């Protein structure tokens, strides 16, 4: 029987369909969240079900910021538990999961069975999250691949602001002084990676490190993060789906009972 995990984040809504017993992926979908998280979740689930050959999942677990707005969810789970379960399923040697989402970043220490042992999240502010990159992408008018391309070649400019709002002013100031956009992009990438490193330093490093979330799609960023952490980093083929996959795995666990 198919089961589903739906992850409605601040930027994108993701869904994954799994076979409840074999845990083989049957279908998946990613759509922009837009302003209506409920509709986005419904559409992502419908698209993933279609991708799986028009199946009707018998159990749906929901996660992400929009998790409570989905009336069709049989179970609601936080993204912390889901990213942990997803990452350990994809890379069984995982001991630490790093996730950079649209609004927050987290470091999760996991057990071999995919459950959470400890976790840390960034406080209140958006520094060091995907939101920070959105600001940059707006100012430079480049998308994530283009930013990554630029950052890989730039000489990191110093960005001192911790806050996304102040950083915006700072970035505009740097550009006005003639600092090349590639250097600014490299500077922002470096500052996000360093914030992540300092968050990670508060959790004991053991096992392998797995990096999930949309930002993991940028090869430039994950190289930088691995260099900053000083350890290799696993990245799943579709890192933005790790949360939805984790939700689907938890759905399978519950539905099998």
């Amino acid at each position, binding site marked *: 029987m198919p089961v589903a995990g739906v992850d409605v984040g601040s930027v994108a809504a993701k869904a994954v369909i799994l076979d409840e017993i074999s845990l083989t992926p049957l279908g998946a979908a990613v759509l922009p969240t837009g302003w209506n998280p409920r509709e986005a979740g419904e559409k992502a689930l419908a698209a993933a079900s279609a991708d799986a050959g028009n199946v009707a999942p018998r159990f749906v677990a929901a996660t992400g*910021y929009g998790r409570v707005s989905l009336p069709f969810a049989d179970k609601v*789970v*936080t*993204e*912390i*538990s889901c990213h942990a379960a997803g990452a350990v399923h994809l890379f069984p040697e995982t001991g630490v999961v790093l996730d950079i989402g649209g*609004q*927050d970043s987290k470091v999760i220490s996991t057990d071999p069975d995919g*459950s*959470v*042992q*400890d*976790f840390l*999240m960034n*406080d*209140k502010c958006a520094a060091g999250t995907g939101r920070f990159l959105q600001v940059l992408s707006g100012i430079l008018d480049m998308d994530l691949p283009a930013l990554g391309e630029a950052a890989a070649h730039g000489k990191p400019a110093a960005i001192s602001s911790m806050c996304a709002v102040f950083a915006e002013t700072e970035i505009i100031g740097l550009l006005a002084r003639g600092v090349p956009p590639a250097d600014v992009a490299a500077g922002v990438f470096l500052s996000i990676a360093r914030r992540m490193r300092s968050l990670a330093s508060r959790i004991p490093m053991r096992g392998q490190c797995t990096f999930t979330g949309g930002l993991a799609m940028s090869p430039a960023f994950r190289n930088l993060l691995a260099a900053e952490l000083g350890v290799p980093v696993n990245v799943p083929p579709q890192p933005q789906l790790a949360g939805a996959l984790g939700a689907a795995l938890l759905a399978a666990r519950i539905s099998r009972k």
Partner: protein
Amino acid sequence: MPFKSLETFNTVTDRNVLALQEAKAAGRKVVGQYCIYSPLEIALAAGAIPVSLCGTKNDSIAIAESMLPRSLCPLVKSSFGFALQDSCPYLAASDIVVADATCDGKKKMYELLNDYKPVVLLQLPQIQNEDAALYWRGQFAGLVARLEKEFSVSISREKLLDAVRLTNRLRRALKGVLDLARRKPSPLSGMDILSLCFRASFMPDYEQCIALLDDIAREIANAASAEAQTECPRILLTGVPTGMGSHKVVQLLETCGARVVCIDNCTCYKKVLLQMDETRDPLSELADRYLATHCSVMSPNPHRYEVLEALARDFQVDAVVDLTWQGCQTYDVESWSVKKFVREKLSLPFLQIVTDYSETDTEQLKVRIEAFLEMLA
């Protein structure tokens, strides 16, 4: 709320402000106090009514930020904001304010407060040993002299002893209620505990307060564990003070499915630990006991760990949550040692939450708390 005695308590304490104003009109003096280190007994022995002034509301913070740095702890800003906008009836009723030099933010704020209210600042030592206790006794003796002069009264040893006997009874009564939560499942929610302690701290009539608390303890002790509640994870909350208005973390923990069974802070359970020996010289006893309070301004702060261990055992908790107000350096730094202690010595899961009084991070806090509870499951 299912208990009749609790409802009665709420109805009576709804009238706290009125009762205080009536007492004042009848000639009683009022002493406002900010911190648990300020002794209730000296104000009582002076014939005055001590009331709590600790700032717990978000809406007085904006005006405070017109003078104080934004990065300061919300408790300090909230307390000062009430003075600036003259919106706290208890502060307005206070003839004099007793404050303690505890953390840096507070003691500098009290310097500014002096322009709005007469402030007696007690110089709190930040270590707990004999020299410090002797010095602290000197500060208390100074307070005795000051209140005698301000209120034209004399504070005898007998009056101090009477006050000690009265607060001992009050604290035993409060402990009787708070200890009901040791039962599994606990008949009281964390919000009940918080609201009860908060309301009691403004009650002018101590005898009435004791009688009401005794009624609550009696009614709930005799009530069979009526509703067959499913057992929720039992949380020991430790850290900074909380009251109505700064209750959001207690509320979030409970809406996410936990039960806060004990609140180890100076607005709740720390109060009931202040049991005085009635046979000793009252000023020395007061100085010793108050100084032993395990606030993070003490360095070192060994009693914090002893108390945590005892409370975790007595209340049979499943996890410890440490609450820190943003900008509070002492609790924030100490959280590292508390985490180590809770995980390694008590073998319990631990979560620190750093936040302020506003609602802006509710969603993020929910994720954090829910994930923590999922971890316990």
